[in-house]
């Protein structure tokens, strides 16, 4: 009876969000980091394909694109990943109870928010079939000035760096931090 009640409680959305920011914060962050690193692998591999192997930019589609070229060409995949990032950064934020780790985590969130808007603009063009400023391919705002590969290398970096700093301070809180952690992430001496 007690087990059934607990299980029912855990299935509520409030219970779920509470759990992933307390008991399961460490596990959720690890899972999130696996997704982020897999995405990074694709972008770094794309960089290698262009900058080292000399592949033409449209042909350099990372690892997934070798097997599923249509998938990488699809704006929906890129937009989907941007949304996953945004949701992950937002839902896992309350587990960051320190001043420093929360600051860096939310910095990553707000940068990702803008990055997500850029992808939403690309996705909209793909859906309506009209590209910004009559360009031959869907084009985001900053992409009017900066080529896509370098721009997304930049976006991914400036989201990832504050995220990593946040996670580092979350694992190893500075001496000046006085807070009660709600999760098991901080490494004890």
């Amino acid at each position: 009876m007690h087990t059934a009640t607990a299980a029912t409680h855990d299935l509520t959305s409030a219970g779920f969000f509470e759990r992933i920011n307390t008991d399961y914060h460490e596990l959720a962050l690890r899972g999130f980091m696996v997704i982020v690193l897999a995405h990074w692998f694709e972008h770094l591999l794309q960089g290698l394909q262009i900058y080292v192997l000399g592949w033409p930019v449209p042909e350099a589609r990372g690892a997934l694109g070798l097997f599923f070229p249509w998938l990488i060409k699809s704006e929906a995949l890129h937009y989907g990943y941007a949304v996953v990032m945004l949701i992950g950064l937002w839902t896992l934020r309350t587990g960051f109870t320190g001043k420093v780790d929360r600051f860096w985590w939310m910095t990553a969130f707000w940068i990702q928010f803008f990055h997500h808007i850029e992808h939403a603009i690309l996705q909209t063009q793909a859906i309506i079939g009209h590209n910004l400023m009559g360009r031959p391919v869907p084009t985001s705002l900053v992409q009017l000035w900066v080529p896509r590969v370098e721009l997304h290398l930049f976006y991914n970096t400036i989201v990832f760096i504050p995220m990593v700093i946040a996670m580092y301070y979350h694992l190893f809180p500075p001496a000046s931090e006085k807070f009660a952690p709600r999760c098991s992430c901080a490494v004890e001496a």
Partner: protein
Amino acid sequence: MARREKIQSAVRIAITAFVTLLLIIVTLGWIWTTSHQPPALRTASHVVLTIAALAGIFAVAKIWRRDTVR
């Protein structure tokens, strides 16, 4: 060395290794864009690649600071 210090060193080294890889790709990108993009796009690429590199260096400097030890 205590358990915490060992884990902290491993995390710092892992982040530093990733940033090093990122810096290598950014440097290769800088070289490639210099010879493959027209001047306006090249300058824009150089600006964003430089900011990405500086962000990576900032992260490494930040995590190796002594004030992160509680």
